């Protein structure tokens, strides 16, 4: 039963990803990315990472993509369709490079012999919030505080760049 769900989510994810990079309108790309994120969240559920699946949808799909759509609206971008130039040699090179990278990765991955173990009860616990909480607030306490500084730096930086008034001239 899981195989069918995996195949469903996988095809949805790949189709959405291809749709994202080929669609003309920026808003369509953003919506395709949201579909991709949700299908990847579905695969997280298959891998028993339930807390991550919810976060993926909540934070990635919910907050980050909203910010993307805000900026696309703010900059009134959809009128930039003409940026998709017709087929050019650049596409061919990029596509070739991509295929080369992909084939090496797939070759490396094919050598992975491990199969997903039958979902043992212990495995069931790994994806839950409790397991994440235990590890997060014991071993990974320092990275949590580093993330706090990272987010504050992002806030200060974003405000500095996005604000209209240029404070350089005021305090001479």
């Amino acid at each position: 039963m899981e195989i069918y769900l995996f195949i469903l989510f996988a095809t949805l994810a790949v189709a959405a990803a291809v749709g994202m990079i080929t669609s003309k309108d920026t808003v369509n790309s953003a919506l395709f990315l949201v579909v991709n994120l949700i299908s990847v969240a579905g695969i997280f559920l298959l891998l028993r990472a339930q807390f991550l699946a919810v976060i993926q949808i909540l934070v990635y799909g919910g907050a980050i993509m909203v910010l993307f759509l805000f900026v696309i609206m703010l900059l009134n971008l959809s009128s930039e369709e003409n940026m998709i130039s017709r087929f050019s040699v650049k596409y061919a090179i990029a596509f070739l490079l991509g295929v080369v990278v992909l084939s090496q990765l797939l070759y490396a991955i094919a050598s992975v012999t491990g199969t997903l173990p039958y979902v043992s009860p212990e495995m069931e616990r790994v994806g839950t919030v409790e397991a994440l909480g235990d590890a997060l607030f014991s071993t990974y306490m320092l990275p949590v505080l580093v993330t706090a500084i990272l987010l504050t730096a992002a806030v200060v930086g974003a405000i500095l760049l996005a604000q209209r008034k240029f404070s350089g001239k005021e305090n001479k």
Partner: protein
Amino acid sequence: MELYWFLGLSAVLFTIGVIGVLTRKNAIVIFMSAELMLNSVNLSLVSFSAQLGDVHGQILVFFALCVAAAEAAVGLAIIIAIYRNNLTVDVSKIHLLRW
């Protein structure tokens, strides 16, 4: 379920992201492809964590998500600043500092 199904899917999504970054000209779509690359790596992290049965992989996905969010906030602020200066987000048009 074989592990390499999941890793293969994440490699395919990663490559689509790479191709997206290299071919598209709109700064926002390039940035979205970079987010897609990060997201595909999250997928392989979760599958490794499921196979190894420990939680470290999922913790790294946790932090990778925060990094992606912080990058989104700063990146879109830069794109807004670019829009104010050059009024275009077409990456090939803004090349003041050439070779």
